[in-house]
C-alpha cells in the first residue's frame, strides 16, 4: 500500500499548473498536445504517453482548477479511449493526440436520461448502407464541445460507434446557450451523413462502459479541482474582507463552513484516487465508483455554493469568477448521473447476502 503521489506525478501536476496558468486560450491546446497529455493514458503502441488513470486524475483536477474551456474532456476523457479501442481509428487517434483534430462524443438521444451511461442512448439513429458506405440519420443532443470539433464519435443503438466528419454538408449543428458558459453544448442533426463504423455489439458496449467509468472518474477529478480553486478564493476573500472591524474569516460560522469543504475535497479526492487506481489495476468495485460519484456530486454543489455565500453579494455577480466554477460544477454533476442510481449500486453491494459474511 502506498497512497502517496509519486515524484513523477507531482512533477506532472506542477508542469500542468504552470502550463494552464500561463497559456492563453488559443495557445493552450497546442501546449497540451506538445506536453503529450491529450493521450496521457493511451498506450504507447497507439501513440499515447502510456500513463494511467491517476495521471489523468491529476490532469483533470488541474483543468478544473484552471476552469479550462478547451475541449479536454471531450477529447482526452471521452473520445481518446473510444478511438483507442478501435483498430480502424489509428490515424484519427494520432490526430487527436497531436492536437491536429478535435473530437467530441454524441451519445445522448431524445427522451433518455442525460448522463455518462448507456441508458442515454436511444434507438432513433438510422444507419443506412449505401454503395459508397454507411450514412447516419437522426439527432444527438447536448453534445459537449460540438461546435468547435472536427469530428464526432456518434453512438447508435446496439450499441454501435460511428465516426462522422463534421464538415460534411449532411450535418447541422444547433448550438444551445449552455448553462456552463465555458463549455459549448450543441445538438447534432445528421441527415444521411457519411460515417465510418468503429465497432458494434459487445465490443462497442465494453468500450463505452469502460469509457464512461473513466469519464465519470475524471468528472469527479474536475470537480475536485474546481472545488479546491473556489475554496482558495473564498479563504482569501474571508481573510481580506472586514466587517465589524474584523476579517470575516475569523467568525467561526464562516471559517467552519470552509473547513468542512476542505474535508469534503479530501474525502472525494481519496475516493477518486481509489477509483482511478482500481481502473488501472482492473479491480474496480462498482460500489467504489458509485461512492466516488455520490461524494463528488455533493462536493460539486457544496464547495461552489459555500464560496458564493462567503463572497456575499459579489458572489452573485459576473464581477466575480465564481459563477463559471459553479456552472461548470453543475454541468459535471449532471454528467455523473442521478444519485439514486449510485445509491442503489452501493446499497446492493452492502445488502448482498454474500457480503455479510
Amino acid at each position, binding site marked *: *500500500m*502506498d*497512497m*502517496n*503521489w*509519486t515524484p513523477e*506525478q507531482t512533477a506532472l501536476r506542477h508542469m500542468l499548473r504552470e502550463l494552464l496558468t500561463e497559456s492563453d486560450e488559443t495557445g493552450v491546446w497546442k501546449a497540451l498536445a506538445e506536453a503529450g497529455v491529450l493521450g496521457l493514458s493511451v498506450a504507447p503502441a497507439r501513440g499515447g504517453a502510456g500513463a494511467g488513470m*491517476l495521471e489523468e486524475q491529476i490532469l483533470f483536477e488541474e483543468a478544473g482548477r484552471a476552469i479550462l474551456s478547451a475541449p479536454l474532456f471531450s477529447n482526452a476523457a471521452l473520445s481518446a479511449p473510444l478511438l483507442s479501442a478501435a483498430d480502424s481509428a489509428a490515424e484519427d487517434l494520432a490526430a487527436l493526440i497531436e492536437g491536429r483534430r478535435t473530437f467530441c462524443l454524441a451519445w445522448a438521444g431524445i427522451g433518455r436520461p442525460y448522463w455518462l451511461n448507456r441508458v442515454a442512448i436511444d434507438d432513433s439513429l438510422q444507419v443506412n448502407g449505401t454503395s459508397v458506405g454507411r450514412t447516419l440519420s437522426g439527432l444527438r443532443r447536448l453534445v459537449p464541445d460540438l461546435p468547435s470539433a472536427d469530428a464526432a464519435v456518434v453512438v447508435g443503438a446496439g450499441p454501435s460507434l460511428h465516426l462522422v466528419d463534421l464538415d460534411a454538408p449532411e450535418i447541422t449543428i444547433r448550438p444551445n446557450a449552455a448553462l456552463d458558459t465555458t463549455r459549448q453544448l450543441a445538438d447534432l442533426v445528421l441527415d444521411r451523413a457519411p460515417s465510418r463504423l468503429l465497432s458494434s455489439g459487445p465490443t462497442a458496449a465494453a468500450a463505452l462502459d469502460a469509457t464512461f467509468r473513466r469519464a465519470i472518474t475524471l468528472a469527479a477529478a474536475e470537480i475536485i479541482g474546481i472545488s479546491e480553486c473556489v*475554496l482558495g478564493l473564498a*479563504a482569501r476573500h*474571508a*481573510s481580506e474582507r472586514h466587517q465589524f472591524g*474584523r*476579517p470575516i*474569516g*475569523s*467568525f*467561526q460560522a*464562516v*471559517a*467552519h463552513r*470552509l*473547513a*468542512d469543504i*476542505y*474535508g469534503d475535497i*479530501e*474525502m*472525494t479526492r*481519496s*475516493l477518486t*484516487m*481509489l477509483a482511478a*487506481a*482500481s481502473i488501472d*489495476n482492473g*479491480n474496480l468495485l462498482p*460500489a*467504489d465508483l458509485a*461512492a466516488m460519484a*455520490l*461524494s463528488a456530486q455533493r462536493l460539486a454543489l457544496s464547495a461552489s455554493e459555500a464560496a458564493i455565500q462567503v463572497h456575499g453579494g459579489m458572489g452573485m455577480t459576473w464581477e466575480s469568477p465564481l459563477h463559471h466554477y459553479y456552472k461548470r460544477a453543475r454541468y459535471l454533476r449532471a454528467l455523473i448521473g442521478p444519485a439514486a442510481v449510485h*445509491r442503489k449500486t*452501493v*446499497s446492493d453491494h*452492502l*445488502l448482498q*447476502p454474500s*457480503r*455479510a459474511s
Partner: protein
Amino acid sequence: MQPDDAPQEAAFRVRVRSWLAAHAKESPDVESMPGSADVDQWRRWSRALYDAGFIGLTWPREYGGAGLDPAYLAIWADEVAHAEVADHLGLVGLGMAGPAIIDHGTEEQKTRLLGPTLRCDIVWCQGFSEPGSGSDLASIRTNAERDGDHWVVNGQKVWSSWAHMADWCILLVRTDRTAAARDALSYLLLDMHTPGITVRPLKQLTGDPEFNEIFLDDVHVPLDMTLGPPGQGWQVAMTTLKHERATLGLGLASRLDAAVSSVARLLGQPGPDGAATAEDSDLNNRLVDAWVESRALRLLNLRVVSALRCAGDQPPFGAVTKLRWSEANQKLMQLATDALASQALTTDARNPARDWVFRQLRSRGNTIEAGTSEILRSVVAERVLRLPRSR
C-alpha cells in the same frame, strides 16, 4: 501509488487474520468495559497479542517494537476490527505515552516503562484535561512545586479513561507561575500507586464508569520522572496528541468500516417491529451515506499513513480524519438504533440489541473527546486554510 497490499503486507495480513481466527474465542467482549471483573481477561488477551508479535508494530526494535512502517498498523487495525475482537488494553500507552517516551524519554525511563507497556504489565491513563481546562488545555491549574529531588503535585484532572485501573499516568502540570502559559507546563510520568491520589469514576451516558476524576493531594513525583525538560511540557504534549490522532485514526476508521457491515446485516434482517428495514428508503439512504463516508475515511487514513511513512509529518488532511470519523460514527449508531426501533428501548441483559444501545450512547462522546469538533474545525480553518484566528 498503490492502494492494494504489497506482497509482504499481504503476507502479514494473512498471518494476522489466521491468528485472530484461531484465538478469537479468548478475546474479551470488544464493547465491554474492562472493569474489575474481566480486567484479567483483558490483560491476558493483550499479553497474548504481544507474544504473537502484533503489538508495538511501529515502535523501534531497540524498545521491543517491530520497527515496521505504519502501513502494518493499518492492516492490524483492519483485521482486529473485522474479526470483531478486542485490541490491546493499553491504547493510551501504545498510542501516546510510549511514543512520547520514545521521543523525549531518558534511557532509564525507556528501560523501566516501555517493555512493560507493550506487555500490558503497565496500563496508562491520561491526566491532561481539568474541570476548568478542556479545549483550552494550556490553561491548566494543577500545580507542581519543586521540593528537593521531587515535585509535589496538587490539583484535579478529569476525563481520564481507565484511571481506576491504570498503573501509570501521563500528567500535564503547571511548574512555573511566572512564565507564559505554554512555557510554564511540564510533562510528568506518574505512578498511580503513589500516596495522595484519589480516583473517582464518573458514570457516563451508558451507565459505565469509563472516565474518571483524579484528585492529587501532595503527590510526590521524582524529578527524574519528568518527560522532557521542565517547562517543555506543552511541546511534549503536542507530540503526544499528534501520535494519538495519527494512530487512533487507523483503528477508528477500521472499526467504523466493520460497524457499517454490522449495520448492513441489521438492515438485512426483518425489523423487530415487523417492518422490513432494508426496504425503508430513509434507513437505506443513511446506510449508503455511512458506507461512502467510511470508505473515504479509510482511504484518507491510508493517505495519512503513507505521508507519515514518507515525510514523517502529519499531512494537512490528517486534521480532518477524527472530525469526519466522529460525526460518521454518531450517524451510524443513530441509524442502528433507529433500525432496531423498540429493541433499542431496553437495556436488560436479555435484550440481544443492548450492545447497540450502549454503542449509540457511547458515540455521543465522539465529537467531544480528543478534540471537540468545534476545535478541530478551527484547527483546519487556521492551520490548513490559513484563515485569521478567531480569538
